């Protein structure tokens, strides 16, 4: 019997038993429902239009509000919902208007087209409204000037509506490159989440055999690496199936509701992202399996796996650094370290900042280290096997296997 066949038998047991469990079905359904709710519910309540009520005292306010609304909706396509809708609410005097601001009935109070009063300087919504109103007021004043000199006015409008400097990049990039960077970053975020969530599944799955003591019967006929590989493949595919299902549902929901604009990606980028997602997941999965083999109970597994969680967090931060400086020394070295490469290489690829040889070498190192780590973890597993009770020290397990 070939070694891999046994790993497949182990993996298919994991898939059969776990997919049958209520816990798996319920978490899968719940995850999908929560993600759906996050996407659909906001779009039910809001139609993409921000609505504000603006208080007004005296004259000259309605023009400013009208101009601000026009600026806010400048980029909205014909027939689409407006981005901003401003409603004027008139007040007899400043003090009653101020009360309305204080009570939150109006977002801001305009006084005689000269002054704007808000509750405080901060706040997300109000500051953007204030900005719109300021630009509206500026436009009205420029129009006043323009009435006196139409030619100057045309120039002012020209300057205001376009970027003053022409933008050129040496690599001839367009904005697609930028959106690829964003997608790569989103990919890293998903890898990070998958590692932390499904890594824990593998961790507890490996500890399972020791907790219920099946391990002695198993290892009498199965090699440790076969058991570990089977567990990782089985639990990993179930986890990724759940993850993939969630992402597909989310993508369909986003398309249907039009909540987000998802840029289109070339096939090569998609393949690259999936390849590195798989490599990254496997590297960490093997580490989690090793951590699980050092523990004999779930409580201990949490502490043996802590260093791996920390590593994943550090590697994730490295991807942020790479995004800033994809050619820097951190990014170059990070591509050759199997634990950080999955977070670094896809970003560098997206930003077109990795030579082909580095790309190939980084894949070879990551794939090789998965096999190497699996054998090492198997040895630790065999060593820690018959030592029950609490955490097993790495050195102790190692030695016991070598004896």
């Amino acid at each position: 019997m070939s070694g891999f066949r046994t790993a497949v038998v182990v993996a298919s047991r994991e898939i059969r038993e776990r997919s049958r469990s209520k816990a798996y079905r319920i978490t899968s359904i719940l995850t999908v429902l929560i993600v759906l709710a996050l996407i659909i519910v906001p779009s039910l309540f809001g139609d993409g239009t921000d609505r504000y009520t603006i208080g007004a005292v005296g004259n000259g306010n309605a023009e400013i509000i009208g101009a601000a609304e026009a600026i806010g909706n400048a980029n909205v396509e014909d027939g689409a919902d407006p981005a901003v809708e401003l409603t004027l609410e008139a007040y007899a005097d400043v003090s009653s208007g101020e009360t309305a601001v204080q009570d939150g009935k109006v977002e801001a109070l305009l006084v005689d087209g000269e002054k704007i009063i808000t509750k405080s300087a901060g706040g997300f919504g109000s500051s953007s409204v204030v900005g719109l109103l300021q630009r509206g007021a500026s436009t009205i004043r420029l129009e006043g000037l323009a009435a006196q000199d139409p030619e100057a006015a045309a120039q002012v409008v020209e300057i205001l509506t376009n970027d003053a400097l022409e933008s050129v990049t040496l690599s001839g990039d367009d904005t697609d490159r930028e959106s690829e960077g964003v997608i790569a970053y989103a990919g890293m975020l998903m890898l990070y989440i998958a590692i932390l969530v499904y890594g824990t599944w593998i961790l507890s799955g490996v500890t399972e055999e020791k907790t219920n003591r099946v391990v002695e019967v198993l290892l009498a006929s199965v090699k440790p690496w076969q058991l570990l590989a089977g567990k990782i493949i089985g639990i990993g595919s179930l986890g990724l199936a759940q993850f993939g299902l969630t992402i597909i549902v989310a993508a369909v929901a986003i398309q249907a509701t039009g909540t987000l604009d998802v840029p289109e990606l070339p096939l090569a980028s998609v393949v690259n992202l999936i390849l590195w997602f798989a490599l990254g997941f496997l590297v960490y999965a093997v580490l989690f399996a090793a951590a699980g083999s050092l523990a004999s109970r779930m409580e201990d597994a949490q502490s043996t796996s802590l260093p791996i969680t920390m590593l994943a967090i550090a590697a994730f931060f490295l991807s942020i650094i790479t995004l800033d400086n994809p050619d820097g020394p951190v990014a170059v070295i990070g591509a050759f370290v199997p634990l950080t490469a999955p977070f670094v290489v896809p970003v560098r690829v997206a930003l077109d900042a990795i030579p082909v040889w580095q790309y190939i070498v980084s894949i070879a190192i990551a794939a090789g280290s998965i096999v190497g780590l699996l054998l090492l973890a198997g040895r630790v597993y065999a060593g820690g096997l018959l030592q029950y009770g609490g955490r097993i020290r790495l050195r102790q397990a190692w030695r016991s296997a070598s004896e």
Partner: protein
Amino acid sequence: MLVISDLHKSFGDIHALNGCSLSVQRGRMLGFLGPNGAGKTTTMRSIFGLISPDSGSVTWDGQELGSGERLGFGYMPEERGLYPKMRAHDQLSYMGRIHGLTKKEAADSASYWLDRLGLAERHDDAIEALSHGNQQRVQLAAALVHDPALLVLDEPFAGLDPIATETMSEVLDEQTAAGKAVVFSSHQLDLVEDICEDVAIINEGSIVVEGTVKALKDAAPIRHLEVDVDGDARALLETLEGVRSIEVEGSRHNVIIDASSDVRGFLGRAQEAGRLRHFSYTTPSLTDLFREAVQ
């Protein structure tokens, strides 16, 4: 034939195995005895490579053991272990599969063993829903499902009720009759005496007694004398030479005596001492041999 020769294994300062040598033949059942901590489990684990000995060897039909040979062995460890949520039939099929059976072979064999062990109605029950005794039966089936040539069972009778004990003995008998080599450890010496042809006693990491039960008993340097008599039995026993130990339960006296001692005439003296209810002079029981060996 399984041959274990001169195994040594230390865990730190503890010498778990100290030159342990043992053989198990096809078609024979060996009872593997020894006090707690004598090295029984360590020896059995060595057969499956779960422990690598410091020195010594384990061979099967003259071959050094590799994972291929071990796939043809069945093991029931002292630490029982099954997946609690897995159904009995699935569990056994899985065990068959990892021992190299095809899907169909494994499923058929799992069904056969569940039926054979009286669990015909329980195929689809989760292990955790079974009683302790029934879990034990599934554990035995897990060792048998791939039709192994060698069965190694660590305390298979521990915790079984008389009915389950009988089933277990029957199965082991069948396996032996079918030409399998069977070795199991136990503390139930009466049972071992009943069902095993061969015994080996391990003490402090090495085998101190090995052979067929009958030959060992005949060759033993001791005999078992049992006397139940009204009157002063102690004075009576003092007339005997070579008494090694006396155990008293009411008026019944269990005496271990040198095989060379002359007990002729003792029956007559016992009858004179008072009403004699019971008198027997036999080869020692396995329990007697065991005590002699490990003291």
